[in-house]
């Protein structure tokens, strides 16, 4: 976990701070409980899909964010389909890393695990660090639940199993029922409040302010006051339980982090994408057209945007991904800022129509929120295995710029950059996100519109065929971009299509020389994007032993890992790529300035493949294909191996 990077004592594991009070720095008493300060904490809520873990996780996140901690979250859903209550496959988890320092990852190890049932305990215990705090709803550990989780006997009773953890057996079901007593709730309704009881308990444990949550509850259940009251009582009940019972002897404080000054909100990757897209449209002074077909983990982009109609956003839920992509091409031809999004299986289907956008040279953003593959694969798990599909998934020579977001909040900026390139170069652009970014959350410093870089769209307004009478749709500018003439503009009537076109006139042309010319021109145009994107920066020494190259959602983990070495003054640096095609102009030089190049990826080595082919560098790979993000420790370990080698 991140806390071992304290300036003070880089090597002291934070868990030391969590040892019994005796060893801990003096702290004020409250109801005879010790209060300790921690630099940062990783907490995970887990329970049945029906237990509302995502909800309380989100509440805790908001509370921590509002309190001023830096945060990073990792929701972990079960496969899309609801599984039977109490089953292992039905377990839903939400992990939050909150800190008094800047952090980039949801944390490797869990400090405090809240497990609402045996299945949750079984599937999550492994991630709880030794000596960590384990809070369970003991009422849920009955015969049948234990059996469903594959426990022969009650795990809470068999000593060694949980020895080495600070186990707190809390009869949450009973206590919650007591708490909501007299509100006339059915037992089922009453039990639905358990998650707030658990939340209250950890709110006390980490001194969180319950107000925002209480307000949220009130608003959320405004139509059902007694349910609202019940949840509020459960929350308080949990807090009081921690405060009053003997079972908890210590609680903790995590001071606010020193983030750049400004106003913040918490944002997920898909939210940031939606915001970024509307913003791009606004900056360009155009309407946003979004066509999509639902697919995990991209669906939320459609959900978000469909709520923004008063921003002039048109969302079209197409009959399939082919129609979504095709309609986006039509909208681009008609002059809108056209966007479509999907995940792997849908991106495959869009390939042919993407090719149409390439040859007609129309600006369209294609978003791929990557998930585990191949085929339907692991819909709710994250992966980075569509990079080469993005590069090569179209017939013929069909080049397209590719940009990848690095964090949830980065989606906001990256997608604007993608749109800027799309309209300035008249080309479709592929945007890569992944399930980890899409559902993960982090604080986002809310920008002023005035701070944002404008997007300039120029439409042809008059005939460019000086002399001849027909408009020339493929007469290019200095960037090799063709003019974007809006249907409806008098005198600019023209025809485009999927057959090879003569440059300048845009007429169908199969001649050998023209095909060579157009192939070269399309390639040159995309290569030209390198002239307008920033050169590649590195963090750490700008030459030396090891350069770690990453892209996409592994940014935070890799950066955190590399920083360990940088702090130790070791010769390790980090280069994170935003543009995968074209590469920044200086990338080749950068790579050659280091003895070894390491490319950690959540695939079998796709960026590594591109780097080797492009620069002939003998880049080493560190690859994980488990549907989960890297742990900082894993990456750091591999770097160490390279250093030791």
């Amino acid at each position: 976990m991140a806390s071992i990077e304290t300036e003070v004592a880089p090597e002291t594991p934070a868990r030391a701070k969590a040892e019994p009070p005796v060893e801990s720095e003096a702290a004020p008493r409250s109801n005879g409980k010790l209060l300790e300060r921690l630099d940062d904490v990783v907490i995970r809520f887990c329970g049945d899909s029906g237990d509302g873990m995502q909800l309380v996780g989100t509440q805790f996140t908001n509370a921590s964010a509002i309190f001023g901690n830096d945060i990073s979250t990792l929701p972990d859903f079960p496969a899309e389909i609801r599984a039977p209550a109490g089953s292992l496959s039905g377990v839903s988890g939400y992990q939050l890393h909150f800190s008094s320092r800047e952090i980039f990852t949801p944390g490797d190890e869990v400090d405090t695990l809240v497990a609402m049932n045996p299945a949750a305990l079984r599937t999550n215990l492994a991630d709880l660090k030794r000596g960590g705090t384990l809070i369970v709803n003991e009422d849920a550990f009955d015969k049948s639940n234990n059996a469903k989780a594959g426990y022969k006997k009650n795990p809470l009773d068999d000593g060694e199993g949980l020895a080495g953890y600070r186990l707190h057996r809390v009869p949450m079901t009973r206590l919650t029922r007591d708490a909501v007593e007299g509100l006339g709730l059915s037992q089922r309704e009453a039990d639905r409040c358990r998650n707030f009881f658990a939340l209250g308990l950890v709110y006390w444990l980490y001194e969180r302010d319950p107000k925002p949550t209480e307000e949220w509850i009130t608003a959320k259940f405004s139509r059902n006051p007694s349910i609202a009251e019940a949840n509020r009582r459960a929350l308080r009940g949990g807090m009081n339980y921690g405060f009053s019972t003997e079972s908890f002897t210590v609680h903790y404080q995590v001071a606010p982090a020193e983030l750049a000054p400004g106003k913040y909100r918490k944002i997920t990757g898909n939210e940031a994408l939606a915001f970024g897209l509307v913003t791009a449209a606004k900056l360009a002074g155009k309407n946003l057209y979004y066509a999509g077909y639902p697919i995990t983990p991209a669906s939320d982009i459609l959900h978000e945007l469909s709520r923004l109609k008063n921003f002039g956003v048109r969302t079209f839920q197409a009959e399939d991904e082919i129609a979504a992509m095709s309609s986006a091409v039509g909208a681009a031809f008609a002059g809108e800022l056209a966007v479509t999004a999907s995940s792997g299986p849908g991106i495959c289907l869009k390939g042919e129509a993407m090719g149409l956008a390439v040859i007609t040279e129309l600006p369209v953003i294609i978003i791929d929120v990557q998930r585990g593959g191949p085929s339907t694969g692991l819909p709710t798990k994250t992966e980075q295995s569509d990079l080469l599909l993005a590069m090569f998934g179209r017939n013929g020579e069909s080049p397209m710029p590719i940009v990848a977001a690095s964090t949830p909040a980065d989606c906001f900026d990256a997608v604007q950059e993608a749109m800027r390139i799309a309209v300035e170069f008249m080309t479709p652009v592929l945007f890569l996100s992944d399930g980890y970014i899409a559902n993960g959350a982090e604080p986002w410093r809310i920008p002023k519109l005035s701070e944002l870089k404008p997007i300039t769209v120029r439409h042809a307004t008059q005939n460019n065929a000086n002399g001849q009478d027909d408009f020339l749709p493929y007469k290019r500018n200095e960037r090799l971009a063709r003019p974007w003439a809006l249907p409806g503009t008098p005198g600019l009537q023209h025809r485009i299509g999927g057959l090879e076109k003569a440059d300048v006139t845009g007429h169908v042309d199969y001649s050998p020389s023209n095909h060579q010319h157009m192939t070269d021109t399309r390639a040159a145009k995309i290569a030209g994007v390198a002239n307008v994107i920033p050169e590649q920066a590195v963090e750490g020494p700008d030459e030396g032993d090891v350069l770690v190259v990453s892209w996409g959602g592994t940014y935070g983990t890799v950066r955190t890992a590399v920083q360990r070495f940088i702090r130790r003054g070791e010769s390790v640096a980090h280069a994170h790529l935003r543009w995968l095609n074209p590469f920044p102009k200086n990338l080749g030089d950068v790579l050659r300035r280091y003895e070894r190049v390491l490319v950690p990826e959540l695939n079998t080595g796709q960026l590594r493949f591109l780097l080797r082919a492009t620069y002939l560098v003998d880049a080493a790979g560190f690859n994980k294909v488990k549907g989960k993000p890297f742990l900082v420790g894993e990456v750091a370990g591999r770097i160490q191996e390279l250093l030791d080698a």
Partner: protein
Amino acid sequence: MDTIELPVLTQKDFASDQEIRWCPRCGDYSILAQMKKVLPTLGIPREKFVFVSGIGCSSRFPYYMNTYGFHSIHGRAPAIATGVKLSRPDLNVWVITGDGDALSIGGNHLMHCIRRNVDLKIILFNNQIYGLTKGQNSPTSPLGSRTKSTPSGSVDNPLSPLCVAIGSEATFVARSIDVDIRHLTMVLERAAHHKGSAFVEVYQDCNVFNSGAFAYASKKEIKDDNIVYLEHGKPLVFGMNRDKGIRVDGMSRPEVVSLASTGEDDLLFHDEQATEPSLAFMLARMRYPEFPEPVGVFRAVQRPVYDEAVNRQITESIASKGEGDLEELFNSGDTWTVG
């Protein structure tokens, strides 16, 4: 739209500079010619027209029109056109497609475009063959057709384009014939004036790979016995000397009757506006040689138009919530301030 200051357009204004590349005596020529006749009569500026097509001989059409045009990819024209119309309600958008383009690879897009009632004019050139790829079986090729891909005769039961359209909730459904010039012009005009998806099947002769497939319906000498012209409110009368009619009793099948024995009043009277599409559906199933095949407007009813509805939701949302304010959006939900 006010058309007063519009220059009066003529057929020639709609001809592009591109050399037309269809085979000699291809039915496509006539359809192109009639289209060029109809457009100038609509009082719409030339630059407002957009022709979107898929791939096929028929789909070459946009190249020959001096309007905005998109010769796209196979089967996707309805989806592309939907994108055009959704984003630009001011444009007058036509889809040109073939029997393979629309009903084979493109069947799903056609179905969804029609059920949504997107304001598109869809003209399906039905030559019952794959022309561009040189003569394979198409979804409208009759059972038993011997084509390049079905040397022993097709065993694929064909689709009826009109039945597919009606089964997909079509609001406007019509049929005409490439060489039936006056009728084709009328039908294209009717389609042009319909609000919503207007679906038109045109019998088109592929002179090279399926010559004469529609001779029964186009040959002067015989056609009058093999087709019946639909006219709203009129009885279904046909025949060289208009001596035959179509009668329907109850839900049983239609039957051909002689006007010698049956009075006109007992005949089926055409009602293109019937809310219930079953009549249109039944007419669409009348097939030569058992029946004369109806041509004309089978169905023309009003239903909310998709692109209008989509855009209405936007204006309504702006009306109720006000023009979206980005910073307000960013600041919605829980926020906190640092430093």
